[in-house]
């Protein structure tokens, strides 16, 4: 179903570009709480890096490396980080998502705790968005047969 495809120029260029795209994604993510950027945008850029790998390299190879279950776990992990931060505030005796109260466990003052709390939230969003974007792309290019192919290969 998937055509074999190899091109030295594209693959080399891709190898060269991907680290930069990923670094840029982390930059966008890390500045999310004080300037434009954030988890969603960072996650989209990170997913774009992976999509570039899929396009430049063999799709079957990419699918072997990105199993559906791994993506699923990343997606859930992001939500857990997000909701877990909120829950931590709740357990520390304040309202949901009141990051200021994280200063009780973090060695910082409430203002800084708010800052780190936001960063945690953005991290969760970044991971989930990245996983979801990659899995949407994989579902589309494999016409939704991603999982079936994996199972056939496993069998």
């Amino acid at each position, binding site marked *: 179903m998937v055509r074999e495809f190899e091109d030295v120029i594209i693959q080399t260029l891709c190898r060269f570009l991907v680290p930069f795209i990923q670094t840029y994604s982390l930059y966008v993510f890390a500045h999310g709480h004080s300037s434009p950027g954030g988890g969603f945008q960072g996650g989209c850029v990170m997913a774009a890096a992976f999509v570039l790998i899929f396009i430049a390299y063999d799709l079957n190879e990419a699918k072997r490396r990105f199993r559906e*279950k791994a993506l*699923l*776990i990343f997606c*859930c992990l992001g*939500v857990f980080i997000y*909701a877990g931060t909120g829950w931590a505030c709740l357990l520390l005796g304040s309202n*949901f998502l009141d990051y200021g109260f994280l200063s009780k466990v973090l060695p910082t003052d409430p203002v800084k705790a708010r800052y780190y709390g936001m960063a945690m939230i953005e991290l969760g969003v970044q991971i989930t968005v990245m996983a979801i974007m990659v899995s949407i792309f994989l579902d589309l290019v494999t016409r939704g047969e991603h999982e079936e192919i994996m199972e056939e290969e496993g069998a």
Partner: protein
Amino acid sequence: MISEQFPALIVVTPLILSFFIPVVGWWRRSLCLPIVLVALSVCMVSAIGMLDTVLKHGKISYWLGMWEPPWGIEYVVDYLNAYVLVIVSFFGIAAAIYSKRNVEKEIPEHKIPQFYTLLLLNITGCLGIVVTGDAFNLYVLLEIASFSAYGLVAIGSEGALVASFRYIVMGTIGACFYLLGVGYLYIVTGSLNMENLRILLPPLYDTRAVQTAFVFILIGLGIKIALFPLHTWQPNAYTYAPSAVSVLISTAMAKTCVYALIRIIFSVFTVDFITRYVPILDIICWVSVVAMIAGSIFAIQESNLKRMLAYSSIANVGYIMLGVGLATFTPLGLTPALMHILNHAVMKGCLFMAACAFIYKAGLWDIRDFTGLGRRMPYTCFAFILAALAMIGMPPSVGFITKWYLILAAIDAKQYVFVAAIFFSTLLMIVYFWRVIEIMYLKPVEGSKGNEIKIDEEPVSMLIPGLALAVLCFLIGIAWVSGVFSPITEGVNSRFGLGIVP
């Protein structure tokens, strides 16, 4: 201490547990349903706790992240919210228990964790819509609930995909119209908090932007609740969805959207606005009357039981909206509408459970093939008959109570046409339900004497919720008469400034 956190817990617990399900389900599939039930039990406890608090101390206001209301997102729980929250979590639990066996049959095994994830996300969205006090937050949660509903519908039988696609198109139009309306409100007031909008809007009532916003929101949510001319997505979506999903979206989801509409009409806009500036209530009344009759006529033409029940839902949405439309003309206020939100959920939940049980056990969906079913599945058919009788309006069932109060409201409003319409639609209901009952019990089975039929009943986990709801059809009717719920209805009416018509 923990009771102060109920408004957050009721949304966050099912959200976080819904993402546990795929991870745990990968390890052990049998744990999926228990997780759903744990999450919904937490919701149920929170909902009842909040109802108790509201009845004792009045409105609850919860600030997410301790941001003060007009700027931050606020969760507000008053009489109306608390009442709908209990309904939604109760029917979530009922649908989850009911889903146990038929999911194994209808859904490929490796998809079961995803199914339960979507199911729980749908309930999360519904609970979020009910609990939120922010107009834009309501849009986001409405979309969460709708997306999971699209996915759940698409899992179903042949034809479900196209039904799901139509649902997506119509649902997106509805949500976008709602968003546009909120945008207009934001332009003129600069606020998105419902309580704040209620204070800021009155001086602007005669501007065209506010009136346009109201119409946009009304039509958007009208699509979501399947009000008559906007109902086209609904029959196919209900028909082809998996059994548990039919039960869930016809009870929890539909009632949540009705709640959202009532909240917008009476809480963001006020009675003053809808009586003096945009006299929309007359139109709502007439549209509902048309819905009541047209839905019943469509239902009579149908021979597919689930589709017949779907059209019957359209008629019943008409009943609820008639209650909303008559609210300002009668001392009863919103009472008939509030009654029918609960009553219709109970009756339609029971009927859908029975209809899906016929498909599950006997593979029968066409009414004409139901011969001898009364002997084959006696308990299910008994539940079906109880709910059908309630729907028709046998005293002291819930259907009778609704119709009685609606007629009282219509007489108060001096709209005798509506009284006639209620009677006429009841007659039509008798026609379509009697046809089912007749074939089930009275029509002889071809080629046999009838005593050869063995009892072939559905599994207990499907039977118990159905029978429980069937009994509730009558118990709740008695509860309404005895005034158990009157603090809630009075609280809602007094908060919205209703029920004091000269």
